């Protein structure tokens, strides 16, 4: 079987349940214990909670939650988010989505559902993080398009070579200098403009 996935394990994780004291919270804490996750609960605002960065996952209350509860902007949680949904009123569901909930659990919380929510949330969060950094890298490359064109043109004129040869030269120099193509191009453009200014 080549699509084998490792068994997800959350042992050693720390979870934060942001919900007022309630039997639903008790049920969650029991489930966390079975899974091997140390969980604590807190309400309402966690903006001043010490050691917040030690938590691996946060569970938020879609019924009573509000934006100012968290020290991050809506959608900007640095860890996976699981929304606890009681009322399915669209306003509350979309609030949970705006918070960037990677998974959800419906109240009332019973004896199951947390494990699959943790798996879904950690996968979703990883995918979201990977996409965010890939998009950032692609955006950076897109922005350096003009720079590459300029550097290629400089080499074409200076060395009287074709566009293909100029680009090849830029690439080889970058490899030799152990830097990215974009950095090499930036350096070349900078050198030339410095020379122009000196003249």
């Amino acid at each position, binding site marked *: 079987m080549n699509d084998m996935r490792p068994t997800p394990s959350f042992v050693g994780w720390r979870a934060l349940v942001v919900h007022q004291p309630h039997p639903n919270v008790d049920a969650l804490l029991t489930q966390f214990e079975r899974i091997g996750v140390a969980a604590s609960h807190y309400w309402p605002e966690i903006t001043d909670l010490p050691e917040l960065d030690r938590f691996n996952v946060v569970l938020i209350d879609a019924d009573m939650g509000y934006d100012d509860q968290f020290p991050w902007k809506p959608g900007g949680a640095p860890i996976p988010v699981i929304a606890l949904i009681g*009322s399915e009123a*669209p306003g509350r569901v979309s609030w949970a989505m705006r918070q960037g909930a990677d998974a959800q659990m419906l109240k009332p919380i019973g004896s199951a559902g947390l494990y699959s929510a943790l798996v879904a949330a950690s996968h979703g969060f990883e995918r979201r993080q990977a996409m965010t950094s890939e998009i950032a890298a692609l955006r950076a490359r897109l922005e350096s398009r003009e720079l590459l064109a300029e550097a290629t043109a400089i080499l074409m004129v200076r060395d009287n070579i074709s566009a293909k040869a100029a680009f090849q030269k830029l690439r080889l120099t970058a490899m030799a200098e152990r830097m990215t193509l974009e950095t090499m191009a930036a350096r070349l453009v900078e050198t030339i403009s410095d020379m122009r200014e000196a003249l």
Partner: protein
Amino acid sequence: MGSSIPIGLLFSRSGLYWALGQQGFYGALAAIETVNASGEYPFELVPHDADPEGNTDRYAGLCRDMIKRTGLRHVVGCTTSWSRKEVIPVVEKADALLWYPCVYEGFEASENVVYIAASPNQHLLPLLDYVVPRFGRNAFLTGSNYIWGWEMNRIAREVLHHSGGRVLGERNVPIGDVEIHHIVAEIKAKKPDFILNNLIGPSSHAFLKAYHELGLADPAFAAGVRPVLSCNLYEGEAALLGPSIAGHYTVSCYFQSLSGEANRAFLQQVAGKQGTHPVTAFFVEAYASVMLIANAIRQAGTDDIAEVLAAAKTHPFSTPFGESIVDARTNHVLMPAHIGRARADGDFDVVFEAGGAIEPDPFLTRSRLGIPGAEAMSPAKAPHLRVVQ
């Protein structure tokens, strides 16, 4: 089927919203007396009541105890949505039915709840249908920080958007907050065509009084010019507010002042009973819940919930808000939406009496969210469309 059938009554007759809970409690009790005195039912209903005192955390435990202790299958009760959400897991687990008799914000349909309760297509939408063509489509939205206010304002925003109207402002305050002068000041500055009031309890009262003061000082904010709309403000609260509520609008499945022989006969029947000064929608919905339970048990020949529910979904029944039936898909009842305009004495003039009941649509999947003709309405002309009743 035994000759006596236990019925649970779970209303907060003390605590923050005791007045609403008490109306529900007495409405249910009045119906139990009616059933037992009529001689038309082959059983006697026996009430078992518990008072959660407005404390959401007490509902589930009290309901569970009640069911365990008496073996009852039918509970009438709950006012707030949070308390209903607490009771649902209990009735689902215990194979019982909750008969919920209170207007709410929709987006729920539990198989173990019968909603003798209007959801937004049976209150907010018809109210906006009535008011927008008469006063205009630019609104100011207010609410208490609670699911009712959040969701009602969201739906109103959507309706106005589809009608070419604008939301000039929205302010939500914590439950119980009476510091609401900033809302009135903002309304004065923004001059909306109407204000949607989803504040509850003391906040709502403080707002209506402050807005009344503004109207006295500046006639541009009189109720007849820029009215306040509410979906859950009935006779009892209106009487407390006196002249400050006069001229503002409410929508309800029932008003004490409804015309017609049926309402006159009903009022005569319950006259002298507790909780009837005045008779409100909360009273009537709880009354109808018990009548529905009794009729369905008689029809089914058992108080087994599956059979009672099946009977309630197939046999129309008569209520103080008219002929109705439980919708088979959603477990909500068909209800009319009458529009009332408050008088200074706390009663309502029914300015629009609905001819028939509206089918429930708790998830708003079949309802039209725009007001017909509102798109074509020019803002400058809107006030001239007002109809004087």
